[in-house]
């Protein structure tokens, strides 16, 4: 139907030259045009947060942002968290603490927590709970999610991941 716009989307440090309708969401562009399917869509209403990515370091619901709005900004998705084979402290903590079951919400929680802890490494458990309450999980009852995030937060404080992105 509508005219397409050629844009360059920078995701995980890589430029993707894509052509999208103005109405195409960032989530759809990441998934369908860039092939980054780690970002999941749980509601497309901005409620569940499964599609959370970082845009210029800030957590964003990628279902509520248009792809064309993200041009010129640095987008980070779950695919960019690990360095090669080495898991990010949050990924490692989710694994060790059973912070995921079906795994559908996990990329959103990982990016939300990454954004929060990069901005403020010294968040308390109460503050982290407050931040994590913006996303939904149906499997875990959240107990092992907060446990994982707290474990990762202390590891990140002890040994900050290098900010080379």
């Amino acid at each position: 139907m509508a005219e397409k716009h050629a844009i360059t989307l920078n995701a995980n440090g890589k430029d993707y030259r894509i052509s999208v309708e103005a109405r195409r969401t960032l989530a759809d562009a990441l998934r369908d045009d860039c092939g980054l399917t780690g970002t999941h869509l749980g509601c497309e209403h901005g409620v569940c947060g499964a599609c959370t990515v970082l845009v210029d370091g800030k957590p964003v619901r990628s279902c509520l942002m248009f792809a064309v709005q993200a041009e010129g900004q640095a987008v980070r998705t779950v695919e960019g968290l690990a360095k090669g084979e080495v898991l990010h402290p949050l990924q490692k903590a989710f694994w060790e603490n059973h912070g995921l079951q079906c795994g559908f919400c996990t990329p959103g929680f990982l990016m939300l927590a990454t954004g929060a802890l990069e901005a403020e490494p010294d968040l308390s458990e109460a503050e982290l709970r407050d931040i994590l309450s913006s996303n939904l999980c149906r499997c875990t009852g959240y107990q092992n999610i907060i446990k994982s995030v707290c474990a990762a937060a202390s590891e990140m404080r002890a040994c900050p991941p290098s900010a080379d992105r």
Partner: protein
Amino acid sequence: MSWIGRSLPRLEDPSLLVGQGRYVADLARGAAAVKFVRSPIAAGRILGIEAPEGELVFTAADLAGVRPICPILHRPDYIAVEQPVLAKDRVMFCGQALAIVVAADQGLAEDLAEQVFADIEAEDAIIDFEGALAEGAAAVHAHAPGNVLVEGKLRSPGLDAVFADAAEIVALDLRSGRQSAMPLEGRGGLARYDDISGRVTLYASVQMPHMLRTGIADTLMMPESDLRVVAPDVGGGFGQKMSLFPEYVALVWLARHLKRDLAWIEDRRENFLASAHSRDQAFSVRGAFAKDGTLLGLDADLKSNVGAFSCYPVTCGVEPLMALAELPGPYKVAEYGVRSRGVTTNTGMMAPYRGVSRPMLTLTMERMMDVAARRLGLDPLEIRRRNLIDTFPHRSPTGLVYDEGSYKEAMERAAEAIDVAAFRERQAKARAQGRHLGIGFSVFSERTGYGTPAYAARGMGIVPGYEIVSCTMDPSGFVEARIGSSPHGQGLKTALAQLIADELGTVPEKVRIISGDTDATPYGWGTFASRSMVIAGGACKLAAGKVAVRLKIVAAVLMQAKAEDVVLEDGLARVVGTNLSLPIPEVARAAYHQSHRFPEAGPGLVENATYDPGGTFSNACHACIVEVDVETGGVTIERFVVAEDAGLLINPMIVDGQIHGGVAQGIANALFEELVYDETGNLLTVSLADYLPPTIAEMPTIEIEHLVTITDASITKAKGVGEGGAIGAPAAVLNAIVDALSPYGVELFQMPATPQRIRALIRDAERKAHG
């Protein structure tokens, strides 16, 4: 070294953590998009459907040769109803699919769907029990006047006598709101058409891939072998993904008709409207008690709103018949009378959801115990002590046989952990300050791991229950187990790998579990009803055990020992009492490549095994402390204790995860979630913002105590644990709310216990108090 009992991090996780999970939508790039045009009207006659010319739009007329979905129960009280793939002549509920559109991408498909117009002559919709069961009510299905699709009854001969002699009769009317299992990933399918073979591969977010294949093949009248169903990574199911839905039939039909790849990925609104619902139940129950609190008899009228159709394969009997069979739960009841009905309405179809009827049964029994205790002047725990089953095997009034459990012990453990005496002190102090704290208990049984006998007893036309496992050790010593069960987030593969590793003396990392692919796994029933660890686990243990026998024969020949002296452990085949050993991979290679030397073992290391057990019962007690804000009606859960007996724990971390998630859904059912229809049958709650699933802000920390009863009813000694959290939590929460509000003398028999409902109770109590 045993792997059983260790909290091994899950083998499933690495790919999911780095964004390399493969959910259906992730596979759908390049496929054409399918969108269903859905009825905005709950009941009415279809006068016509207009669609733009030259576009790919299909209606019921195009699907003329396709059979309706029509599951069967062999019971005289069951009326079968047909669910067409697309509505034909009439619409039966708001959200029913009327037409299919196909376009190059999702956006274009949505644009096209908006140009399809259905002319529907609306009729009065029947939404609830009152409407459906009213004298002279219109029939939702013309051949089912009275709107009851299934009705089970039974009455023990001494029932009237115990009510006549009872010291106290407790009569309760309980209500559960309609709820959605609400997996975070909705339903979805990708049908790939193979030009050369004409075969279709359907990737679908489902719990029962083999059953889906049978169901689709039957409705399309095609050979099953022309269809492969694959359940890739599945983003939660909780029962909602275990039924055959029209959308999957349509996808396979379209792929064969258009000879192309097509994907349907439902959106959240569609998931609420057109996927399965559950728990819309109303129970009227009377309990006859002796003066000492003994429950003498139970007389129940149970109604389940099953919606417009009957879910395949388990049918709309699943909620009503579970309710009938299991109402007494963990309590001794000598006399039992029950009438349980599945009532059809112009609403979304009911299908299983984690717990199936038992959240409501447990709410019923546990509220009854508290009410009876108060009237008889007994402590709530004491009345339970006097009635809980404590000799095993226990035979219930409906003939269920309970294996060994720890019903009383679990309750005592929960009471101790939550410290009732200390709480009562704290409660009194808080009351003096105008704060309302309350404590509530919920004791329950969770029937799990039941095979064909249980389903056959229900009269199901399709009788599920067994699992077949094919276990292979390859020449390099790696193990593959192909299972018919189909996990969707539980971590089953890790737990099964632990079990198999112990049988074969290897490590879980060398055990690959293959599931969810009808081309690669034996026919099986999938993952539901807390069955997989018991049944697929049992079959894995048997199959791996048979492989172990052959390995030992080969090893014995190689080491010139007796097979019965060979043990498999730590990667070695060892001869006991000697220092002889061989690495297992060396033995495995010999089994394939030197088979002429081992005629007794035969070539290779492949074994099948089937397990079809009668079932077992897990048990638990939930205890929780809440604070009720009497100004707002808001409830905060301060503590939540679970004392759980799920038998032997294969992976305790995974078991705890199941409990956490189950309790969270139980709390959601108790306090927040409800699907609400308006009087015309229009669903009002179609986003997550309306449906109110809890976030971390609403969730307490769950404290878990494990009891371990070793049962003979499960060969792995594991009992199922998937549903317990959801079964027990609502009753504990509601009992705690009533306890908190005891100064007002209110009773609460409805879930969700929303702030509005709690405020209404308090307001009424205050009005009465002030005359």
